[in-house]
């Protein structure tokens, strides 16, 4: 008998570190919801360990990290390391949003980030990227 499976894309929208600006994260959260995703929002000022805990426990397909403070080069690798520790890195799509200077982009991608979306990226572009690249697991 064919049991109908009901798969939704699950996302964690995460604010890491000290910057207190989450308007962008809120807008993204709503846009993801309206796209039919299930979105978990981390809240402000989270430590990388908290993000890892949430991503692992919620078993999200997508981890979207919003950083406006410029600390991405230290914070993002910590998150990636944590995910690796729990075997959750390989099948999580990691995207970074916010202000990332061009010269840092390559390094973040090498660290394991799948895509970086700067200011002014149309919401549809981000959503399409997720739909096309989410790592199907079962």
């Amino acid at each position: 008998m064919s049991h109908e499976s009901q798969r939704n894309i699950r996302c964690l929208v995460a604010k890491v570190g000290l910057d207190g600006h989450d308007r962008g994260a809120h807008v993204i959260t709503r846009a993801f919801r309206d796209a039919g995703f299930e979105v978990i929002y981390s809240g402000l000022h989270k430590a990388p360990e908290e993000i890892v805990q949430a991503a692992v426990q919620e078993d999200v397909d997508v981890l979207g990290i919003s950083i406006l403070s410029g600390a991405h080069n230290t914070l993002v690798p910590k998150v990636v390391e944590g995910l690796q520790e729990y075997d959750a890195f390989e099948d999580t799509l990691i995207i970074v949003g916010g202000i990332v200077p061009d010269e840092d982009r390559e390094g973040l991608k090498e660290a394991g980030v799948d895509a970086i979306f700067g200011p002014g990226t149309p919401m549809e572009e981000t959503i399409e990227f997720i739909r096309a690249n989410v790592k199907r697991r079962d």
Partner: protein
Amino acid sequence: MAAQDAPDLVDELLAGKHRALARTITRIENRSPGYRDLVAALYPHTGNADVVGITGSPGSGKSTLVDKMAKAYRDRGLTVGVIAVDPSSPFTGGAVLGDRIRMASTATDMDVFFRSMSARGSLGGLSTATTDAVKALDAFGKDKIIIETVGAGQNEVDVVKTADTVAVLVPPSSGDDVQMLKAGILEIGDVFVVNKADLAGSDKTVTELKNMLEMREGEAGDWDPEVVETIANTGEGVTEFLDVLDAHADWLDESGRREAKRHQRHAEELRNLLREDASELVEDELDARGGIDELVERIDAGETTPYDIADDVIEPLADCLDQQRD
């Protein structure tokens, strides 16, 4: 990563691997192929956790209270699992699952496993999915499992009913106490928590609740529901609340009600599964007959009625069962 075999996943879950637990719950939620075998394999490892259901209107402070509960349990050396159910949009299926944001007291403590669930697939499937997710947490070895849900409708009531102990949060002088009680919430609560007890009108709400509970008809030997006051924000009253939960758990054991509840729950689980399977049999039959739309068009045209078609579809199934029944 390729899909993992169910036995591997079960082994890893039982070995205490967090990702295996998370993935198991995902499969349960998605009703992925094979999820039933997965739950069946976990079944023998369950039955050790205390399951508490928390319900109440939006903004009554459920998530904040759950955070404080988890902290208090951890202080006692107990491990905790939380399933927080939030509504999803009936149009897009999308949802913002916001309960996790309140779990500040136990952040980074992996012995608190918090999982947000959306109320998707709500055709009776929600309570099946949450019961199964609770089983996964139970098999993982959690001592205390909390199910948190908005007490808005029958679905949510069904969900908390699967818990051993049910706590209902009532905000002080919300003015709609009576409305809330109409929804049948009064009957399901073992403990009533007047949260935000520092707000005006709290005493009045406590009195009203107590009066209403006294009027509730029960049998001799039944649990007398208690009313407690908390200020979840500061943690005030949380210890007293947990004491009442413990007292109820003891009462369940001493009165033999835990066994009776378990029996009831198993019956409900079986019914839900059978209902699901039966309705899929019928869907397949409808497809074989050219799909539901074709049949409905005949109703639209006034040629027949839903009753006639239903009889028509079910009859051969019933005949089939009749013949098989020795």
